[in-house]
């Protein structure tokens, strides 16, 4: 085909441009699905330790997305010395395998949150969300006081079903539940059961009482539950220092 034909025909130009550009993506992305080491195996005593979010944490993740926290916060610690010293162990691919969409990001107006779990108390998170300047006087992060409103969670089972469709191992049938028991152990499998999603959400919120208000399950409960689990699913002391480098 002659150069001129392509340049003077918009239809051809679009189609061929798309093909040329997609080659870059295909060559870089597709093989990763076939390479065994892309997602690290993280097992302790034969059980996977990285699990999907519980129903409450999942609602927290939804709120994180709704509020656009990702516009200022990344969730991926790069394998560099300065990042390691500030945030902790570099993020594993396995740690975001159940995030749809992933929250990696590269825009850091605020610090990376990939390992913020358990770093602060629940009380701190609540104060910080209500008005960041109460705890960090020089903070430029906006306040989110409306998160103290009641959490809408009637549809949480549907939200889990949607994620199940893209491969997140929430269970609905007995066979799926048994597979989760095998993979994660009974305690975790119970939390991933769609049939008891609402009960699980309520009992986790009540036991955790993340927002310090026992009378109501709020969006704050969900968001803080989510923040407190970030980066805590891998106990790196159980693995050799070079273990996760072997996957690369």
């Amino acid at each position, binding site marked *: 085909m002659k150069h*001129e034909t392509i*340049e*003077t025909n918009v239809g051809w130009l679009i189609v061929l441009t798309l093909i040329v550009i997609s080659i870059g993506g295909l060559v870089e992305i597709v*093989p990763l699905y*076939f*390479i*065994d*080491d892309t997602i690290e195996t993280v097992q302790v005593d034969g059980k996977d330790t990285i699990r999907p979010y519980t129903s409450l944490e999942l609602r927290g993740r939804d709120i994180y997305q709704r509020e656009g926290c990702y516009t200022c916060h990344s969730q991926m610690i790069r*394998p*560099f*010395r300065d990042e*390691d010293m*500030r945030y*902790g162990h*570099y993020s594993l691919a396995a740690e975001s395998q159940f995030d749809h969409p992933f929250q990696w990001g590269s825009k850091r107006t605020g610090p990376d949150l990939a390992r913020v779990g*358990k*770093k*602060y*108390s*629940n*009380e*701190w998170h609540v*104060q*910080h969300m209500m008005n960041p300047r*109460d*705890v*960090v*006087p020089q903070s430029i992060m906006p306040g989110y006081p409306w998160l103290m409103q009641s959490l809408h969670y009637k549809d949480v089972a549907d939200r889990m079903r949607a994620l199940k469709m893209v491969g997140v191992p929430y269970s609905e049938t007995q066979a799926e539940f048994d597979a989760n028991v095998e993979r994660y152990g009974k305690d975790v499998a119970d939390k991933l059961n769609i049939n008891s999603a609402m009960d699980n959400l309520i009992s986790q919120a009540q036991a955790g009482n993340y927002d310090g208000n026992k009378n109501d399950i709020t969006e704050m409960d969900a968001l803080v539950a989510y923040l407190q689990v970030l980066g805590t699913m891998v*106990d790196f*002391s159980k693995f*050799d*220092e*070079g273990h*996760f*480098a*072997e*996957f*690369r």
Partner: protein
Amino acid sequence: MSKDKTQQTVQTTGHAWDGDLQEFNNPLPSWWLWAFYATVIFAIVYWVLYPTWPVGNTYTKGVGNDITYTTTDGKEVTSHWNTRSLLLKDLADARAEQAKYVEQLKAASYSDIAKDEEKSAFAYSMAKVLFADNCAACHQAGGNGVIGPYPNLLDDAWLWGGTFEKIEETIRNGHVGNMPGFKGQLSAREIDNLAEYVLSLSGQGSDATKAQKGKPLFSSNCAVCHGQDAKGQILMGSANLTDSIWTIVNVPAAATPEAKRAAIVNLLKTGKSRQMPAWKDRLSDTEIKILTFYVHELGGGQ
């Protein structure tokens, strides 16, 4: 005139829009073309040296640039080039460079560090960064805390003890301080009298009769935790109520005797639980030691 000139020197694509709008069809400048060929050659060299091509369920690992590093437990590991091993090498190199100081700090007792200028300068410079990254969000950049939620680390009052050992234990394992609420157990008047008694303990009382009525209530309800002398017990982090340093109730900010009492009444009714997180999983032993030294030196260490 210009039109004539261009038509002589450059080719056009041959078509014209709006009568005279034409498109140049110049060959690429040769420097550009050669730069392009150079990138192609570079890519081929890169493919050989670095992990690149997928092959089935694995990939080519590259040749000739293996990375060798020493782990924290002294093992030598060699690996093909990858960013994770590169980081481990980077960390190992940094450890080796700092080893001189870090080993000294590890071996030294706290009082040795305090006496040795070089050691304490090193500990200080590292601690400042660690404190800013991990502690300042609660205890504030200067360590002065916030009356109410986060204790001041600069003063002489310690909930959990101000010796090196106690501070280290606090940082390593964290603590939960729990002051219960007495709303259901005591009447409003009893709580009011107790609050007046608490104020009188640090010489800030204004109503001796009320305080007198509060005293027996204190013995029966509060002394278990705060002690008969109300000086607090570091075993449970119960505050010393006889000094004029306040960690939860903001008495200094209250202007009138009534406001002071009201602030205490509020705490006695609702109670307060505060959590200092544990850092043993997040920070190394050396980092905890350095921070302990720093907090102790901030002021009032025992």
